[in-house]
């Protein structure tokens, strides 16, 4: 409840959550167990819909409609994954992550929203969410995304891949962490394929790498997104769109 909010602590939590090689991947006992999920959204109708759509592929242990309720529910149930609405009164999904993650770094967050605004989505990812999907996703796809996040992977929807490519489109920023501020050629290729609508398995085939390597690239991008010194990543991306209109 009184989780420390200082940047240093939050960052430690982030780094742990953002490690690309999540150790639980090889734990075979984990694969059979259904991930335990808390659904956080201020629309009751939507929460009910998600519960129904997810069916029995995951186990929804609680849901919540406000930031305060969400924090209580997560602390009580310590779920594997929190399905988190980006937009909510009292600070939205970001506030939930900020209050929970420092004390419970093992809880993973998957952001879910109808919003198109790049800045909102990037803010939630930077706060520590391990993925973002839009609410138009099908029930089966959502269940798969949850399983993936529970296993420690990052989940990028085509839209998020687009936002990230936009944010990293230009060369290195003047900062000293140059390697965090740029995507490698491979990472860029993987993101472009996600944006084009390919699934991880297909991307692996096309790029002649393993699915595990695709996942590692996506996790690395997530880490860069969270730790890059480009604190104004999103605003900067929006400016870039404007700047570009004046010609090259």
């Amino acid at each position, binding site marked *: 409840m009184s989780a420390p909010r200082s940047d240093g602590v939050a960052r430690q939590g982030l780094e742990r959550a953002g490690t690309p090689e999540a150790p639980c991947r090889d734990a075979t006992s984990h694969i059979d167990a259904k991930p335990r999920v808390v659904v956080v959204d201020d629309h009751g109708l939507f929460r009910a819909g998600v519960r129904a759509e997810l069916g029995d592929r995951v186990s929804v242990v609680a849901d919540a409609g406000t930031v305060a309720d969400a924090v209580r529910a997560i602390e009580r149930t310590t779920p594997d994954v929190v399905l988190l609405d980006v937009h909510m009164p009292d600070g939205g999904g970001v506030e939930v992550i900020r209050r929970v993650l420092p004390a419970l770094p093992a809880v993973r967050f998957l952001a879910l929203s*109808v*919003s*198109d*605004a790049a800045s909102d989505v990037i803010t939630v990812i930077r706060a520590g969410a391990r993925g973002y999907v839009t609410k*138009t996703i099908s029930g089966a796809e959502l269940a798969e995304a949850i399983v993936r996040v529970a296993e420690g992977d990052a989940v990028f929807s*085509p*839209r998020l*891949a*687009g936002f990230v*490519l*936009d944010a990293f*489109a230009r060369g290195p920023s003047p900062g000293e962490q140059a390697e965090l501020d740029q995507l490698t050629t491979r990472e860029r290729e993987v993101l*472009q394929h996600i*944006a*084009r*609508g*390919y699934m991880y398995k297909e991307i692996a085939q096309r790029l002649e790498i393993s699915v595990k390597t695709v996942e590692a690239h996506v996790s690395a991008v997530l880490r860069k997104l969270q730790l890059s010194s480009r604190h104004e990543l999103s605003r900067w991306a*929006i400016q*870039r*769109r*404007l700047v*570009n*209109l004046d*010609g*090259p």
Partner: protein
Amino acid sequence: MAHAIVIVVAFMVVAGPWFLRLARSLSFERAARIREQERADVAAHLHDSVLQTLALIQTRSSDGAAVATLARRQERALRRWLFERPDAHSGEGDTIGTALELAAGEVEELHGVPIEAVIVGDGRLDMRAEALVQATREAMTNAAKFARCERIDLYAEIEATRIVAFVRDRGVGFDADAVPSDRRGLRDSILGRMRRHGGRATVHSAPGEGTEIELLIELQPA
């Protein structure tokens, strides 16, 4: 003279607070009027858009496909209204990005297949860019009409010197060499158009594998 001054001062003392109050209440009134007008604008917009759509959805609730199309269309319109930059309203489709989004929206509405459009970067819409937008629209139309798929993905990357766009579906796919000659869409509107404007279009498809059409054009330096 002294009398006059006294009278003026007395008048100011008596009437001053009244004037002040009047001025203040006028400015309050003005602020309230502006707020009221803004509220009325929002209400009018919601009435013309969301409420109309909800009414339509109620009358057609048995037709699942129609309801989905109505909801998608309304979602897109509302989203444009909420998130679009103010300067994007200066002219319809005046950047490459907005032109592509517009085309995707129109094809989606016309054929009832959802199109997930992801666009990175932006730039001014010149003749070559316009050709690419038209070819992209045709590619999306083909996918919506022939692929029998549930969703189409459009991804476009707009750089200062070139645009590359991908239209991808998970539909039935086809053998590009065996396309009947009466299918002018692919030959003329996509491949031909891109070639005429110094670009190229590549079709990746096989029966059962879905289709991806890749469109690329170099832009003229401004």
